[in-house]
Every structure is written in C-alpha cells, then in structure tokens.
C-alpha cells in the first residue's frame, strides 16, 4: 500500500520561522517602527512557528497500523 510521505516538521518550522523573521525585517526596512521591543516580536515568531510544528506533529495519523 502506498503511503503519503510525512511532512518533515523540522524543515516546515524552519521555513515558517525564516518567513516570520523576513516579515519583521521587511516591516522595519519599509520604514515602520516596532512598537514593542524587537526581541518580543522575534519570540512571538518562534512561538507561533513552534506551535504550528507541534500541532502538525500531534495531529498527524499514526501510521504504525
């Protein structure tokens, strides 16, 4: 039986994190000022991408049977 290969969560999370970092940098480069410390926004990006990765890991089916 052919099974769809599983998503590589590490690559997924890294991609999401880099996109979030790029969005933050793009906002600043565009001329906007972050109204909170930049470290907070970076932490939020890491938290969001990590949560998505965790959700993907937990909700995918168990393929052992």
């Amino acid at each position, binding site marked *: 039986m052919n*099974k*769809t*290969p*599983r*998503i*590589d*969560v*590490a*690559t*997924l999370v*890294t*991609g*999401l*994190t*880099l*996109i*979030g*970092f*790029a*969005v*933050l*940098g*793009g906002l*600043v*480069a565009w*001329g*906007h*000022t*972050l*109204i*909170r410390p*930049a470290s907070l*926004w*970076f932490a939020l990006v890491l938290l969001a991408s990590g949560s998505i990765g965790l959700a993907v*890991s*937990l*909700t*995918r*089916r*168990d*393929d*052992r*049977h």
Partner: protein
Amino acid sequence: MNSLVDLGTLDHRLVGLQRPNGTTFTSGLCRAVAARVGIDVLLVRLAVVALVFAAGLGLVLYAWATLLTPREGRVAPIRRLVPAFERWPRNTQVVVIGASSLVVVLALASQGNFSLFPAIVVVAVFLLMRRRAIRAGSAHPGTGQHPAAAWHDAAAPTAPPPTTATTIEEWRSRLAAHASIRTGPADPLPVVDLYGPDPDPAPGPNPAPAHPQAPVSWWGAVLVVLLSGGAASAAFAFGLSPTWLWACVLGTGVAGATMLFWALLVRSRRLPVVVLVLALGVGATSSWMVTERSEPAERVAVETGTQDLTYEFIANTGVVDLSDLDLDDASTITVEANLSSVRVVLPAEPIRFTQDAEMSQVDVVHPSSRTADEERPRSSATLVINAVMSTVEVEYLS
C-alpha cells in the same frame, strides 16, 4: 501498550463509560454518568453547573470528560482530534489533562476575578475521598479496588462468575501462580481484553518502522542557497534602497519560502539539518541587524498659541516636542496613539495628566538631576493620553 485514560481513573464505576447516541444539544455525558452511578441526571447536571462557578473547574472537567468518553459504537473524540494522545503513557496523559485544566482555571480566575478557593476545596475533597476509597479497597479486597486497577479497568480481565467458592479459589490460585513468575514485584499483571480488537502482532527484535526517515537531499540544500543568494543579490542588482537591508530581508524570506514549499511538496527527501541550523542562524542575525537599524522617530510639527492641540498616530511613530511651550499656556494637549510609538516632550509636569491606556505602556520620564524635595515647576497645560496597543513616553524637561 498504552491506552486512553477514561473516567475510570476518577471512579471505578465509570470504567468504560460511553455516552448515549441521540443527544444533540448536549454531549450526553451527564446522562451517561447518572445512568452508571445510579442517580438522577438532574443531580449530575446541577453538580456540573455548580463546579462551573468554582473558577470554571466544571467547564474544564466537562470538556475533558467529553473528549475522553466515546459515544456508543464510536471512538473517543480525543482520538480523532489528537491521534498521538493515546500513544502517550497513561501517566503522561493524566499530567497533560491536569496541567491544561490548571492553566485554564488559573486563567479564568485571573481574568474574571474569581476566587480559587472553591476549586481548591473541591479538588482537596475529591482527593481525600479517593484516598479513603483506595485505603478501604486495600484493606478489604473484596469490596474496594486497588489503585493500579483503576488504570487498567478498561481492559482488565473479567473474573469468572463467582457461582461457587471453588471457582473463585481457582481464579485466585491462577493469579497467584502467574504473579510468582513475574520478573519483579512492581510489574503489573498482563492485561487481556477478550472483547477488544485484535492486538497488534508481537514486534520482532528490530521492528522496521512504517515510515523510515526520508533520505537527505543535498541538492535541495544547494537549491535553497542558490535561491536565497540570488534574491539577496537581486536587491543589489536592482538598486533597492537601503540595499543591504533589503538584501537580508529578501534572502531570508526566499530561504524560508523555499523550505516551506519543500516541506509541503517534496516529502520524499528532507533537507540536511546542518543547512536548517545555518539558515536559521543567518536569518535571525540578519533580521536582528535590520531591526537594530530602525530609523529615528519623526518629529511632528507643533503649533503653539492655540487652545487645544491634538496629535493622532495610527501605526506610526513620532515625537511631539512641546519643549518651547510656555509654562503659563493653558492648552489641552491630546495625544491619540493607536498601534504606535510616541514620545511627548513637555517643558514641565502638566497641571493635569489623564491617560487611558489599553494594552499599552505609558512611561513618564523626569529629569534625572531633580531631587524629591526640590521645588518643581508646573505647566498650566493639560495632557491627555489615549493609547491603544502603543507605547507612549512622556518626558519632562524640568
């Protein structure tokens, strides 16, 4: 073998509980519990409603109980929503349920200014009753239940019907014989569910995983480097300004997008971990450098001599410099800041300062050279700060 925690963990009478079909408005949990315990369903519902007022404890328990209890002939909702949950050890499941319930109760209590005392009392009474039940069970094996049995009741072997004393003694002797060949005293008895689905075949010494790890693709790593490097070079080539800022942003963004598409589309091969770590480090460093190079806030043109001054900032940043304002000027200065970062400079502390800050931070900066008992000059102006998700810094020059 792990299995799903059910309400039998709380009370042995609720082992293998199933919610009835046909209840659409409610989950049918109260009806199932009442039928199993043998009390009126109204009492169970009243108990749940009363527990809701114990800092939302009833709400959390009802939600978890519904998730863990299947409808007749179906699987528990938690198995469909989070398939990995039942693969965790039962103790881990209990810890997750307890921790999440604690977080929700604490959040509800803090947000609604509810007292935690009723919830603490309820939990303490429950733990006390459960402990007494366990002690009674160990003292009188025929009437109570061992704590370990509560974990395995759902699949525990059913004792033969005690029709005669001979049958019971035979069953006990078989259990004792089995216990004597166990490897350690702490090992639980084997669990056999005669009515459950067929067990998984016994794994061999090295069972092959159903999903072996996908092989590494270095060509994918090269693709990521080429695309991100090309995007960063394009910033220079097209002369985007400021160049190096946009080079960092574009390179990081393209690398992230490439990895995201690779993870979603090219599942047969994975990117090397070293490439992921390097990309993350380079992306974080470059983005941090970009944010550190943010432009200084723009000064807002200030008019003096008018009675009311109003400055609005929406998703912006700026400085309202009123340092030249006359101390006798009785103007009303209103600063409306929405999603913005604003700095207000005043010659002295205003005679009235009103602030309405929602999810915002308003800081007042006094001159560092001033002492506490020093005579402070006062401005006749009135300052009104209305901030929504913003940071406002008010600085007094004297």
